[in-house]
């Protein structure tokens, strides 16, 4: 990695702010703010999912709708191994299982062009769901499983830990030559291949790496559920939420997906608990359509545009 062009002051300020936020969030359970802990559990979860989704899909433009599949693999890892091993081991098992699944899926499908890939990954969620249903009903005769529960604080700190790892890995990938390779794939895959980038390898590896965090988050969140069956574990909405959050926040900036995740999971929390519960999907759909139509660069893009107007800086030629 090349550190010679790093702007140390800017990096320091960024890092400092991140650390302060991290410490404040980490201290939350200590002050015993229960609602805050459960609210932030979802913030952390969706930040992990949105950021890890962006590692691969945000840069390459291949829209993966398989987040729910890897998340569900994590949930099932917790359901199967949760009783025998301590949580930290199960998290590693879930992460590894997701990595392996994503690696194979990537190896099969990443030769496909954009939209086929999106369809295939969405199909994967439904396929896993159907096959596990079939397996449980007809072959193993175990309908649904119970998961060892963990306290809210344990879940919170585990997610926080995974989040920190996710952010560091995402940052390092963005800074490394793999990040550049991913970006050039996103801009023009053929040109990238001609420049000597092993396009298939880079795509498969980064896809599999991004699945690690989804699987790990699935394991931790499974300990919040008492009962697991394929319908619970492989919920397609878990595939769309991260995509929407990342685009809503803005793919162009490192913190965009994270900001989108926090705002959106807050909106979700307000909508699903309030009087508008029945219209949640309707509002969700409307925001999705409106975001695509009016905020293609996300909130961050909007803010950057406004800031440019105010500060009067020259706009880059489009």
């Amino acid at each position, binding site marked *: 990695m090349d550190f010679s062009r790093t702007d140390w002051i800017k990096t320091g300020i960024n890092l400092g702010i991140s650390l302060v936020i991290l410490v404040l969030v980490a201290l939350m359970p200590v002050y015993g703010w229960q609602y805050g802990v459960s609210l932030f559990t979802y913030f952390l979860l969706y930040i992990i999912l949105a950021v890890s989704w962006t590692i691969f899909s945000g840069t390459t433009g291949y829209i993966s709708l398989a987040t729910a599949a890897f998340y569900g693999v994590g949930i099932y890892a917790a359901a199967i191994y949760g009783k025998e091993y301590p949580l930290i081991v199960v998290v590693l098992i879930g992460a590894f299982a997701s990595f392996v699944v994503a690696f194979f899926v990537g190896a099969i499908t990443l030769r496909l062009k*954009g*939209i086929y890939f999106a369809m295939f990954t969405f199909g994967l969620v439904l396929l896993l769901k159907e096959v596990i249903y079939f397996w449980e009903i*007809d072959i193993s005769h175990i309908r649904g499983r119970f998961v060892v529960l963990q306290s809210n604080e344990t879940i919170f700190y585990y997610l926080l830990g995974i989040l920190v790892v996710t952010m560091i890995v995402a940052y390092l990938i963005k800074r490394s030559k793999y990040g550049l390779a991913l970006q050039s794939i996103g801009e023009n895959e053929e040109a990238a291949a001609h420049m000597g980038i092993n396009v298939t390898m880079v795509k498969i590896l980064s896809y599999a790496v991004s699945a690690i965090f989804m699987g790990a988050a699935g394991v931790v969140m499974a300990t919040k559920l008492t009962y697991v069956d394929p319908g619970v574990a492989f919920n397609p909405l878990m595939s769309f939420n991260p*995509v*929407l959050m990342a*685009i809503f926040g803005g793919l162009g900036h490192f913190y965009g997906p994270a900001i989108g995740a926090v705002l959106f999971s807050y909106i979700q929390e307000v909508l699903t608990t309030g009087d508008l519960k*029945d219209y949640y999907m*309707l509002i*969700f759909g409307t925001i999705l359509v409106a975001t*695509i139509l009016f905020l293609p660069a996300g909130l961050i893009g909007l803010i950057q545009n406004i800031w440019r107007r105010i500060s009067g800086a020259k706009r880059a030629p489009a």
Partner: protein
Amino acid sequence: MEDLLRMVLGGLLIGGIYSLVSMGLTLQYGVARVLNIAHGEFLMFGAFITFWLQQNHVNPLLTVVIVAPLMFIVGFIVYRTLFTTIRLKSPNPGVFESNALLAAFGLYFIVQNIAVRIWGTTPRSFAYLSGSVSIGGALFNENRLVAAAFAIGIGIIFYLFLARTRTGKAIRAASQDATTAGLMGVNINYTLALCFGFGAAMAGVAGALISVCYPINTVMGLGYTVIAIVVVTLGGLGSIPGSFIGGFILGVIGTAVTFWEPGLAVASYYVIFIILLLVRPKGIMGK
């Protein structure tokens, strides 16, 4: 032997409806470049409008005359407002496809939620032409035969429309290369919206036919969308005859798998989809 006959004929009958749904999607995806996840929701709406009209004593087969134009108008307007805007804002076709896919997902959530608000999630059904006919010893309901005949008839009429008329020619030109067709004097925004509208109309008609034969509910749409996507891939993107034939093939395969193990029917569609994407992504009729 009787089982085999029942399996194949039953598959061909449901295949007629699959063909109709898939021809609709191949117009929307193959020509208008929108992978319309909400396709099945148009179908569901068609089914429920038929159900509602039937409750008000309208002959279910006559409702096709109402459902088709209604869905066409809805589809046309959706394309002209939503997808045309996205298309004009997108820097290249790849970006348009992924943004349109996400917008279609949004549309799917909106339409389904509206339907669930209106009709709830309980399955509905009504009886129409439910006597049975014997073909070579196997029994089939009259309504399924009528529905399949309707589907095949509409398929053939639409194929002739594409092959013989000026508008059909414009649609075929747009399916090959929309930008170039636009340069050749085809009013491209209008033509693409037309395709999207025809697609929605076919989904609506298919829904009307489904409601005649099977119980319907408000969350059935996605299942048919998935089937249509598999058939469109099978038949070749943008190929109307391909989707027509593909529908029957998938109908037979689906019925055979259901006959053997009902839990694996949906899984078998994905297996076909995966094999196709790996072996022949252009489909059987693709160029």
